[in-house]
């Protein structure tokens, strides 16, 4: 059952119930009135009975007065009273037909009354005939009938009184029943009405919702239309891009402002024509337009760059994107085509490319130059390394030579002179003095040679290592310079590769020479340490320090004898993968030379 049918049924039911309710209330009212009627009916029956009695008594009296006095007027009154009796009697008869008992009682009364009236009529008739009438007999006769009449009347009245409560109860009962029906049907009708109201409400809500939906759908459609409109306006407003569509066969189906500006055709001129008119002849011959459509169909889109024609036949370099448009079923319904004028960009790109090529050439040239520079720097470094090496080698050779050949010869010369001296020693003559002076000279020469050779090449360095060679050297240095030296050596500091030892020794020599020549320091402290795999030598003086500026310059630019020395020291360390650090204040200078002791051996093995 649909809602509307249901609501209709409910509504009709409610109406019916209300009708029923009205009927019931009418009935209820009717029964309420019925009980009242029964009361008045009883009163009426009793009253009519009374009237009958009264009329009978009236008639009896008038009869008597006629019988006794012979008064004709009394007879008239008697007739009127009899008529009254009959009339009342009839009225009574009409009142009681609904009840058999009362009907019987009424008939009884009527019978008795009729009997009495008959006797009365007979007496009157006798009188009229002039016969004598025995009044007392009549009265006796009458008394009996009167008693019966009274009994019948009483019976009527009593019966009526008896009937009244039951009749009223019956009426009341019906009244209650119909009242209940009224209330019940009314209540049900109200409930049905409420239900109907609810149904109506529901339906109303449903309708409202439906209305809202339809409104929303309408608004959505309006929006879509607006958007479409905007999009169309936007497409039309685009001036720098030609945006147009093609039908599946490649004929132009829409055209925007940009397309007009770019290609020169108005929409009226071009719509419906095949898009191959935009392509140069050679492209058309090669079937390029159709091929592009095929690719767009297959791949979804195609991007292309190339020459295209304007309406006036001039060419421009175009960037073209063709996109296939499909409907929801996947069928091709056309193509969109976006074309841009890339002529300027193409030219700029070409220029850029050219510039790029030039730049690349330049870069190549520079790289070559850099490589050359690096090569020459490398060869310079190699040269300096070679120079240092050959200098070391030379010094070593000269030192050795001096020490070995000249030194040994001088030593033996002195030995021989000493022997000679011993032989001539006691004689005080020219020969002895000459020999003695020769001995001194030889000794001096020997010392000189030794000193020079020691400076050129440290004695004992190769044999005994830094730990021994440095003290030997310091002894000589202290003697020559009057600078007090001290040496502190880590217990774990041991032999290092010969190159490292020589380099450190040369740095020590250079530093001590600098201290002697430039610093004015009275002391020089040397410390040899080995920590974290680094062998380090620290030379500390208490001089005036290296002039500011000399240190600040980069190592490559150090000038003067001090600078050259520092540079040489630096280069020696660099060759060994070590570091040279010089820090100087006005209270002294600290030169630290460090070499990664473990790595050096491997490095030397590799370069050897």
């Amino acid at each position, binding site marked *: 059952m649909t809602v509307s049918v249901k609501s209709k049924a409910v509504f009709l039911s409610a109406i019916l119930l209300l009708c029923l309710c009205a009927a019931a209330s009418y009935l209820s009212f009717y029964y309420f009135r019925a009980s009242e009627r029964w009361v008045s009916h009883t009163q009426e029956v009793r009253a009519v009975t009374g009237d009958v009695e009264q009329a009978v008594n009236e008639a009896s009296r008038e009869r008597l007065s006629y019988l006794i006095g012979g008064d004709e007027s009394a007879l008239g009154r008697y007739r009127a009273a009899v008529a009254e009796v009959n009339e009342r009697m009839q009225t009574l008869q009409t009142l009681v037909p609904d009840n058999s008992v009362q009907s019987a009682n009424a008939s009884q009364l009527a019978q008795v009354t009729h009997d009495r009236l008959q006797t009365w009529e007979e007496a009157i008739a006798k009188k009229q005939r002039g016969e004598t009438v025995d009044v007392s007999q009549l009265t006796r006769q009458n008394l009996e009938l009167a008693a019966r009449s009274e009994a019948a009347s009483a019976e009527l009245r009593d019966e009526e009184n008896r009937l009244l409560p039951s009749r009223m109860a019956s009426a009341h009962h019906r009244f209650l029943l119909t009242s209940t029906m009224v209330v019940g049907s009314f209540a049900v009708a109200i409930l049905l009405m409420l239900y109907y109201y609810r149904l109506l409400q529901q339906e109303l809500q449903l309708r409202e919702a439906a209305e809202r939906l339809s409104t929303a759908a309408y608004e959505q459609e309006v929006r879509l239309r607006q958007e479409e409109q905007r999009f169309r306006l936007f497409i039309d407003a685009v001036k720098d891009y030609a945006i147009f569509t093609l039908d599946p066969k490649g004929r132009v189906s829409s055209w925007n402002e940009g397309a007009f500006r770019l290609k020169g055709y108005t929409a009226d001129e071009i719509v419906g024509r095949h898009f191959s008119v935009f392509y140069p002849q050679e492209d058309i011959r090669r079937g390029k337009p159709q091929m592009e459509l095929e690719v767009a169909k297959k791949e979804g889109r195609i991007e292309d760059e190339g020459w295209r024609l304007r309406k006036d036949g001039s060419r421009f370099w175009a960037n073209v994107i063709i996109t296939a448009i499909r409907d929801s079923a996947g069928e091709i319904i056309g193509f969109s085509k976006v074309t841009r004028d890339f002529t300027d960009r193409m030219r700029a790109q070409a220029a850029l490319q050219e510039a790029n090529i030039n730049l690349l050439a330049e870069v190549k040239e520079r790289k070559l130059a850099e490589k050359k520079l690096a090569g020459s720097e490398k060869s310079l470094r190699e040269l300096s390394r070679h120079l240092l090496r050959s200098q070391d080698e030379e010094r070593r050779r000269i030192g050795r030579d001096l020490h070995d*050949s000249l030194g*040994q010869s001088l*030593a033996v010369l*002195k*030995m021989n002179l*000493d022997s000679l001296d011993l032989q001539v020693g006691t004689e005080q003559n020219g020969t002895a003095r000459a020999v003695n002076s020769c001995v001194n000279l030889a000794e001096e020469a020997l010392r000189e040679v030794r000193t020079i050779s020691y400076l050129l090449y440290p004695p004992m360095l190769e*044999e005994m290592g830094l730990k021994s060679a440095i003290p*030997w050297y310091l002894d*000589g240095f202290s003697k020559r310079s009057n600078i007090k030296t001290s040496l502190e050596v880590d217990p774990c500091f041991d032999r290092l590769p010969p190159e490292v030892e020589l380099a450190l020794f040369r740095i020590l020599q250079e530093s001590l020479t600098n201290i002697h020549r430039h610093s004015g320091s009275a002391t020089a402290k040397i410390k040899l340490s080995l920590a974290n795999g680094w062998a380090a030598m620290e030379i500390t003086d208490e001089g005036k320090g290296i002039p500011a500026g000399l240190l600040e310059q980069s190592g490559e630019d150090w000038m003067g004898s001090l600078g050259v020395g520092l540079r040489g020291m630096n280069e020696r360390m660099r060759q060994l993968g070590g570091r040279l650090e010089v820090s100087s204040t006005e209270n002294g200078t600290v030169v630290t030379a460090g070499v990664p002791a473990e790595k050096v051996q491997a490095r030397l093995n590799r370069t050897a």
Partner: protein
Amino acid sequence: MARILIADDHEIVLEGIRTILGRAGRDWEICGEARNGRMAVEMVRTLKPDIVVLDVTMPEMSGLQAAKQIALGGTACRILIFTMHESERLSAEVRQTGAHGYVLKSQAARDLVRAIEYLLGGHTFYGAPPEAAPASKTNLGPAKFFVQALAMG
């Protein structure tokens, strides 16, 4: 008669030593001449001289290294370093090697014969005669020399 091994890479020095020793007039014999440290060590082992005179600066193996090896070799041979190097350090260096003394080449005429005599006598000679050579040091047997050499080396 004492047998002496001399080691120096310079012929002229060897010549000088021979001259000095020859002129000394002692009952000494030069039993061999080595031209480098290695040779000296070898000859000490084969010739078993009473004393070896070692130059310091020699090719292949220096005199100091040779002295070390000889001292550790367990011979009774006395070791005298004969050197050009003149330094206060020399004494310590020589003692460390286990040699028994040294003589500077410049003082050879004066000291060499004396030093050899001291060493052969069981004493030491570090650039000068021992200040007060203890009596017990005299006439030490070869074993004692070895122990002493070990202690010093």
